[in-house]
């Protein structure tokens, strides 16, 4: 069966979506990724969608789901590389991906994950 590869980089997972996904492939990715987060104790997931020409409501929902599931598994998700035309279309479609963090590229996404971890650790110490 066709699958989207999930790469491990240190404590992060990187997924690069380059194909025009049909719905089942998106569902498989959701399952594979949550399993990999649990297996590897990853603290962050970067999903590079620079190769995606569209994000429709189905893929939008998948992105929100992954982000929510990862959060419950103690991992942050950052979506990187969204094409400007895709962003314009998404908002007009009515999807603003609430709760999903984004960055312009993988490098910035990685930085965001690092600072999110450090920030979260610092604020927990402050509050408790």
């Amino acid at each position, binding site marked *: 069966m066709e699958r989207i590869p999930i790469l491990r980089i240190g404590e992060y997972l990187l997924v690069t979506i380059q194909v025009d996904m049909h719905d089942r492939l998106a569902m498989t990715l959701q399952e594979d990724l949550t399993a990999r987060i649990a297996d590897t104790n990853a603290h962050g997931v970067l999903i590079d969608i620079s190769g995606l020409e*569209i994000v429709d409501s*189905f893929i939008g929902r998948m992105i929100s789901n992954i982000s929510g599931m990862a959060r419950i598994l103690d991992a942050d998700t950052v979506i990187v590389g969204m094409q400007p035309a895709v962003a314009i*279309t998404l908002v*007009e*479609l*009515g*999807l603003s991906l609430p709760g999903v963090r984004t960055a312009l590229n993988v490098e910035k996404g990685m930085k965001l994950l690092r600072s999110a971890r450090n920030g979260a650790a610092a604020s927990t110490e402050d509050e408790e």
Partner: protein
Amino acid sequence: MPVLKAESLQVRSENDVVLVRQAARKWAAELGFSLVDQTKIVTAASELARNTLIHGGGGAARLEALAEGVRKGLRLSFEDQGPGIADLELALKDGYTTGGGLGLGLSGSKRLMSEFEVVSRVGEGTRVTVTKWK
């Protein structure tokens, strides 16, 4: 209105939905739509083809390149012989869904395109026609 070119595709599987997207992309690019408009057209095609598959139980998609005076357009129609839509007004509301999705397929496609029309009869089927003008 003169139709320059037309093509019909079946929508019977998830893979057909991908093929409809790819055809819509190719036609939109050939007609000279901007990248943003191409993206909107392909996204609407994806939403509507999925509706045809999931809610209509499969059907057909038709692409037509239009010319009206100097302006050009792309019309996409999706037809199924499924259960039909009982309450169109409700189906067009943001967030209303019977398919477990986000409920943005119809209402979102309407926003992405220039013209939008739904004809549906309960027990007979649904036809959604959308057009984007350049």
